[in-house]
C-alpha cells in the first residue's frame, strides 16, 4: 500500500527526511513514532502529495497503491463551515458526497451535521477530521497525531473506530504518533523516526521491550 525507499526531503539546506525507508502492507496498521521536529509531518505531507516544489526538494521513491487520505496534524478543518460541508468536501477527490457510510461508522457526526466545525470540542473536531478523510473512501489512511490535545478517553474512542475500520474493512493505517503507548496498543509494527532518520523499527511488542525506545516514551533521544 505504502512503499517508501530512500526518501530524502530537504528545505533549502535543512534536511527533514534523511534516506527514510518504510512500508505499510495491505490491511496493516503501522505506527510511526518520534519527537517534535523528527520529520513525521513532512513524511505525511510527502505521502499525501502536498509538498510543493517551492517548499522542498524530494528524492527517493514513494509508491502508494490505492487512494490515500490524510488526517492532518491539528485537524485542519474549515472552521466556518458546517460539519456536513466539511464532510462533503472530504469527498472532493472521490466524487462521493453522501456522508451516510461515515455517519454509520461515526454516528455522533450525524448529530453534529449542522453545527459549525470551529465551535466543536477538540475530540469532536478530530472526529470530523477522521470522517472527512474517510469520505474519500481511502484504501490507506495516514493519521497525523490522533491524540494531540485530546483527553485519553476520547483518544481511545477514536482509536477504537480506526481499529474497527482496519479489522472490518481492511483499511491500511499509518498512525503517526508521539503517544507510543497508544500506538503500540493499536499497531502491529512501528518505526521510530528521529532527526529525519529511521532509528528503530520492528514489531511493537519487541520495540516496547527495547530500552532505547522506552526512553522515547518520555521524549528522550534514542542513543
Amino acid at each position, binding site marked *: 500500500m505504502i512503499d517508501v525507499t530512500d526518501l530524502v526531503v530537504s528545505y533549502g539546506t535543512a534536511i527533514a527526511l534523511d534516506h527514510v525507508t518504510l512500508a505499510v502492507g495491505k490491511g496493516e496498521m503501522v505506527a510511526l513514532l518520534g519527537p517534535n521536529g523528527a520529520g513525521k509531518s513532512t513524511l505525511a505531507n510527502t505521502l499525501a502529495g502536498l509538498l510543493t516544489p517551492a517548499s522542498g526538494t524530494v528524492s527517493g521513491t514513494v509508491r502508494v497503491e490505492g487512494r490515500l487520505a*490524510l488526517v*492532518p496534524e491539528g485537524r485542519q*478543518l*474549515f*472552521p466556518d*463551515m458546517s460539519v456536513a460541508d466539511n464532510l462533503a*468536501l472530504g469527498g*472532493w*477527490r472521490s466524487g462521493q*458526497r453522501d456522508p451516510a457510510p461515515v455517519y454509520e461508522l461515526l454516528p455522533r457526526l450525524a448529530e453534529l451535521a449542522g453545527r459549525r466545525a470551529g465551535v466543536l470540542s477538540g475530540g469532536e473536531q478530530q472526529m470530523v477530521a477522521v470522517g472527512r478523510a474517510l469520505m474519500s473512501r481511502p484504501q490507506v489512511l495516514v493519521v497525523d497525531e490522533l491524540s494531540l490535545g485530546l483527553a485519553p478517553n476520547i483518544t481511545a474512542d477514536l482509536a477504537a473506530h480506526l481499529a474497527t475500520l482496519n479489522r472490518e474493512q481492511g483499511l491500511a493505517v499509518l498512525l503517526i504518533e508521539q503517544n507510543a503507548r497508544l500506538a503500540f496498543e493499536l499497531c502491529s509494527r512501528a518505526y521510530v523516526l528521529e532527526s529525519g532518520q529511521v532509528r528503530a523499527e520492528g514489531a511493537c511488542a519487541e520495540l516496547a521491550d527495547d530500552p532505547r525506545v522506552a526512553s522515547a516514551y518520555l521524549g528522550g533521544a534514542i542513543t
Partner: protein
Amino acid sequence: MSAFLTYLLNGLAVGCAIALIASGLVAIHRVTGVVNFAQGTFAVVAGLCTSSLLGLGVPHGVSEAAAVLLAGVAGLLTGLAAIGRPGTTPLSSLIITLGVGVLAYAVEIVLWGDQPRSAPGLAGSVTIAGARIQTQHLLVIAVTAATFVLLALFFGRTYLGKALTACASNPYAARVVGIDTRRMGLLAFALGGLLGGLAGVLITPLRPISFDTDVTLIVNAFAAAVFGALTRPVVALGGALLLGVAETMAAGYGYGSHQLEVALGLMLVVMIVQASRRSAIHEEAV
C-alpha cells in the same frame, strides 16, 4: 429634497458599479491572497468592447454578454500570469497584476485608441418621490443586487462555491482533501474578470470609458474592498455604496472637481473610526 434624493439614488448606482469591481477584488484575494490591481482593467475592456460591438450593429444583450465573457477571459489570463507558476508569492503576483494593467493600456490604445468611448444604455428616466433617476441607474442597482444574491447562493449552496470558500478558509486543508487550490485561484480570477466586466458594461452608458479609466475605478474599488478587509463582500458593498453616494453628493453640491478626494477622505475617516473601535474592543477583551 428631491435633488438630495436624486443624488442619493444616482450615488447608489455609482456605488453598485464600484461594488461589483470590489467584489471581484475580494473574491480573488480570498481565494489566492493576491490583490489584483488589474481589476479595473476588466471593466475598461468590457466597456470598450461593448462600445465597439454596439457600433458594429450587434444587438444589445449579445454585445454586453460578449463583453462580460471577454472580461472573464481577461481575468483568467491575468490569473495565469499572476498565479500560474507554482510557488509565486502573493507579493510577486500583485506586481504581475500591476504589469498586466500597464500592458493592457498599450493593447487598449492599439485596439480602441486613446479617446473616451461611450455606449447607449437604457433610455428614459423614472420619477421616484419627486426625484428623477435615469433608467440605466436603476438597471445598475437591480443587476448588482441580483449579482450579490447569485454570488451568495453560489458560495453558500453549490459544491464548487464551497470548494472556493474552503480555499479561502484553509488553503492547506483544501489541498489535503484534494482541491487544486491553484485551479480554484484561476477560477476566482475568471470570476473577478466577469464581475469587473459586468461593472464595465453597466457604467459605460453613464460615463465614457477610456484606457486609463481603470485608475479611478480601482482606487474606488480598492477603498471599498479594504473597507471589507478584502474578505467580506457584503461589507465591501456597504463601503462602495458609501463612496458612490459621497462622490455623487460632492459633485451635485458643487465640488465636482474634488469628488474623488471628498469620497476617499470620508472613507479614510470611517476606516480610522472603525480601526479605533476594533482596537478598543480588542483591549477590552484582553
